[in-house]
Structure formats: structure tokens, C-alpha cells
């Protein structure tokens, strides 16, 4: 299945970067129904593709959507079950932003039928593409490495207390990847002189990490939720900061290269 909102940069290495929340497009049919906060799309993982623009040099495949997460969140359980029961989070088709402010004008929020329709039109294609790419990489290498790329404001009182560490590594509490892969990412992040990290802290990995990260099936998944202050301005108009980015990218590259090295060590280089 192909869809015009999906962008796949297909490459041959075992690593796939998934970017489910970087999209900024609100479809024309939806925009008139959204509140001012809805059209502001503050909760976007801003500039995430630009941050990982070195993916080609690692021979990594990139899959991303241009659609805003406000249309449908492809990193949520499609059944609507919460990823973090008991804690504030946002839904499959969110009706509030991270701060709890409504995204829709009164009476405009989607009903069940509309949500089911969005699942078919926008959710399913992302996962079909993701599954196809993972299958392709497994057929080449015998395994695949999935890295789900995210970023968020470092302070969001409704979602977590205080200030978030810069590197929030999620491996579904260890279930989504081999310990050696987690160690490769932790080592890279911990070595950054200025930034802190957490492993399976507030963010343990979303639906994508949990669903596809199954080492027994040859897919090792890691989610990295980055504090946005590490590479951009954390307030409107969400300016990209090339200087900060220059200081951050070596750490990201080391983390990803560490995952790839782990794969080569354990499975051998296939191409």
C-alpha cells in the first residue's frame, strides 16, 4: 500500500528510523474543525527528519509521515488502550494537546466512526509500510534494527514532573531489544558531557517500539524521546538551532552506529 503522506527513504543497512510524529500537515477537511491550538500543532516532534539527516551515511532506511499526529497518532495502540495506564497521555485521535487544551472547536471532535475511518486511511498505511520495510531488512540481514525517533518539550507539567532528561531511551522495559543494543544507546547518551539520560523512565517506548520490538522475531527496537531543548527552541515558533544540532548529532550517530555494530557482531555483515 502506498500513500502520498508517507515518505520512505529506502536503503540497504539493517537500521530503520521511524518518525511517526514529525508531520506538520493538517488536511484541508480537518483544519476548519480545529481550535487555534489544534492548528498550532505544538506537540509536533519538530524538525525530527532534519535532526537525523545523516541517516543516509549509516545506510539507514527512513520512514516518516507528513501528517500531523493530531490527525491520528500512529504510535498509539489502535484499540485505544492507554500506553501509560494511570498517567496522563494523549489518545489515538487526540482531542487535547499535551497541556490539556482542546484541539477541536466545540462539537467538532471525532466520533468512533470517524476514528475508525482515520485508522484505515492514515494509521494502517504507516504500519503496512513499516512492516514491509522491516520484512525487507530481515530478508537481507536476517534481522532488523528499529529506532523510533521522537522529541518533546523538556517541561510539560501535565505529562511529567519537573524537567525531562535530554535522552529518554525506551526499550519496553528491556523487552524490545537485546540488552547489548540498549547498552550501546545508553553508552552514547551517557557520554554526552552536558546532557542526562534515562532508560525506561517516564518514556518506555510507544506502540511502535512495543509492537515491533521482538528480539525473538529478529527485530530489535529502541525509542529515543529527546528533550527538544537539545536541538531547538522549545517555544513558538519552534526554531531549529543548527549550532545545538551540531553538538547533538555526534551522540545520535554514535548511538545508531553502536546499534549497527552490535548487529554486525551478533549476526555478521550480510552486505
Amino acid at each position, binding site marked *: 500500500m502506498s500513500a502520498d503522506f508517507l515518505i520512505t527513504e529506502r536503503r540497504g543497512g539493517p537500521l530503520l528510523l521511524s518518525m511517526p510524529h514529525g508531520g506538520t500537515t493538517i488536511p484541508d477537511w480537518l483544519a476548519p474543525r480545529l481550535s487555534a491550538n489544534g492548528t498550532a500543532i505544538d506537540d509536533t516532534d519538530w524538525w525530527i527528519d532534519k535532526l537525523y539527516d545523516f541517516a543516509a551515511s549509516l545506510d539507514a532506511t527512513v520512514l516518516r509521515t507528513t501528517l500531523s499526529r493530531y490527525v491520528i497518532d500512529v504510535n498509539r495502540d489502535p484499540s485505544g488502550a492507554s500506553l501509560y495506564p494511570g498517567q496522563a497521555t494523549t489518545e489515538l485521535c487526540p482531542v487535547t494537546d499535551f497541556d490539556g487544551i482542546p484541539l477541536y472547536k466545540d462539537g467538532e471532535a471525532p466520533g468512533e466512526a470517524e476514528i475508525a475511518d482515520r485508522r484505515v486511511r492514515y494509521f494502517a498505511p504507516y504500519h503496512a509500510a513499516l512492516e514491509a520495510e522491516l520484512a525487507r531488512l530481515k530478508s537481507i540481514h536476517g534481522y532488523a534494527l528499529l529506532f523510533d525517533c521522537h522529541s518533546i518539550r523538556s517541561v510539560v507539567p501535565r505529562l511529567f514532573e519537573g524537567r525531562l532528561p535530554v535522552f529518554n531511551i525506551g526499550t519496553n522495559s528491556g523487552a524490545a531489544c537485546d540488552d547489548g543494543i540498549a*547498552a550501546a544507546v*545508553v*553508552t552514547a547518551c*551517557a*557520554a554526552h*558531557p*552536558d*546532557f*542526562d*539520560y534515562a*532508560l525506561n523512565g517516564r518514556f518506555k517506548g510507544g506502540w511502535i517500539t512495543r509492537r515491533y520490538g521482538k528480539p525473538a522475531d529478529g527485530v530489535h527496537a529502541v525509542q529515543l524521546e529527546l528533550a527538544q531543548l537539545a536541538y531547538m527552541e522549545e517555544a513558538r515558533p519552534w526554531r531549529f538551532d543548527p549550532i545545538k544540532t551540531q553538538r547533538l548529532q555526534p551522540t545520535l550517530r554514535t548511538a545508531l552506529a553502536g546499534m549497527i555494530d552490535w548487529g554486525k557482531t551478533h549476526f555478521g555483515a550480510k552486505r
Partner: protein
Amino acid sequence: MRSIKEPADILDPRHYAAVRRPTDLAEPLPPWCYTSPAFFEREREQIFFKCWNCVGPMSRVAEAAGSYITFTYVDVPVVIVRGNDLKLRAFVNSCRHRGQEVVQGSGECKFLKCPYHAWAYSLEGELVGTPLFEGHDQFDKNEYGLVALKLEFWAGAMWINFDPESGDLLSYLGDLPERTKAWHAEDMVCVSRVETVINANWKQYYENFSDVYHVPFVHTSSLPFKGHAKREWHNENYIGNYIMHRVWFPGTRSIPDEAKPLPEIDLTSDLQGAFYPWIYPNGGMSFTNDSMWLIELYPDGPERTLHVRSLMVPKASAALPDFASIIVNYENTLALITSQDVVVLESQQRSVHSPVYCTGRFARMDKLVHDSELWILDRVIGNADGQ
């Protein structure tokens, strides 16, 4: 030929009985006190680890949270860092994992992160990051924060104490803050900081500071008399862990006669001249009519000492449009004084190695030198009189 060699029982008070006589009859410290690793080790335990030690102006650490400096003091790596609350804190700069120096040099950081295994400490010294250490259920991070040192402030300077049981700095200083409060040193700015390595025992400089006898001979070209008439020496009216002498002279003697001086500090006439307190064990100060300078000594073993001089002036003086052209004359004079002292102190250090060197006697003008040596003996050997 008489000679004095380091005895095996270096801490036996009888070796120091001659030093304890009244000044007119006393002999200076035996030569091994300036060369012996054992004597230095005892000084470290009994003096440097128990007293308040001066480590320079507070402005050494920039104003921003996360600003830090590092230095080594009697072999202990130290870091002083400004917390998120902007308060300064001092820690032993050794990682609680396996002892690596956590940070190097100076700069600004978000965390104090060890380069060896990336253990990370908050700016307040708590251990917050131990990468790849998960699942170690016999380990409580809260017990492995950086080791804190006492850090207090006076006269715009930082003072550390390694002894958690020590009293507070102001009690230690006694009446010195009251005697010097008219200078408002805490409001001054540090306009220069000069480091000089002296290949001599730290006490060579420490004694020299209160040695008024050498001034007309060693500092002929840097500190001409300029008509100063009298001195006042430390006596029983001075209370605190310091020794001070005062020299009366009009104006400043830190610049050539024809040079433009800094504006005078608003001082009453009874505070004319200069006051030179040495705060035991490592801090010297000079309160003059227009400025204050501060000496820190960093002993590096028995025969090497880092000497650091900071020049402090009132903010208004530093803001003068021609400040740079005025202060350069002060800097030149201070540099000349230090270089002249270094020559004699290093010569003195070479001489105490002589196998036939014998100690001499004190002149009346050496009274404070004798007092300084007794202060050392009281702590290194104890108060026993050797009988």
C-alpha cells in the same frame, strides 16, 4: 663541623626546644622542616586538613549555574561549582566509582560528568547517572554523592575546610573582619590573578610575608621607604587565626611617585598605611589606601609551592576610563616584589639542603617570623615544651 640532619623521631618535641625559647634566645625551625616529606605529611594532617584555607576570589567561578573551577590543594583534587540555586559548593573532585577526577580545568556544565565511565553528578553533588549499572540491588546512589567540603566566604574570597567538625570561618578569623571592614573587600572586583611557582617550601613564603626585616634589603627597588615611620606588629590585642603587621605611610607605595594612583578608599585617618594579615595557614592579604591584594599558597609537596596573587579594587575604580593605564603600574610593582621574593626564597630552600647548615637566631624584627613558626610547631608537634 656542626650539622643538623633529619632525625628518625621527627615528631619528638625535644628537637624543637630551641625554637620555643623567647625570641631573643630562640633558633629558627630546623632545616628538615622545609624539606622533609614526613614533616609535610604531618602539616597536611594537622594544619591544612583542619584549618580554613583560602582558595581565591569568589569571582573565580562565573555567575551562571554550572560554572566550575578545579584545582589541587595539598594533593586533593577540588571542584567548586555553582548550583542551580546559584550557590557555590566545594567537593572533592574524585568520582565515587573508582576515583577519576570528575571534571578538569574550568568551564560551565549541566552535570559534573566523569570522563571515565560517565558517572554523572548534579551541580549539587548528588550522583544522578551510573550508565549500564542498572539492576545492581546492593547499590544506593544516595550514598555515593561527591564528598562535600566546607566552603565559606569572607572579603570576597572563598575558604575551604576539609574537617567536617571544624568551626565556622568567621569564628576562625576572630576580629580580623571587624578590623578590615572599612575596605568593604566583599564589594571589590578582582582585576588580575597571577600564578607563580616557587621552588621552595610553603613556609619560606609564609614566614617571608611577616618578615619586615628583609624589605629594605630585598625590595629596595620595589618598595622604597617613602618616609614610612613606624610599624605595628601583631600582639595580644589581636584575636583570631591570623598574624598581622601594619606599616604607616601616606598614600600608596605600589606605584612610582609620578604615576597616577587609584582613587583612595574612604578610610578614617587611623587606617592610613597598609595592613598585612596572614591568615593561617595559606592566605595573605594587604589592605591599602586604594586596593587589596590577596595571596593564596598551594603547597605541592615539601619543596614546591604555587603562589597566586589576586589584585582587588573597588568597582568604581575598575570602571574608570583610564583604569588600564593606572593599574599597569600596580601590576608591575607587585610582579617585581614577587620576583624579588622568589629569588631569595628559592635560594633559602637550596641552602636548607646543605649537610652543614646550622640554624641561627632571630633579630628583634623577626618577632612575627618566630610567632609564625611557633604556630606551626603547636600544631605539628603539639604544645609540649620538650622537657
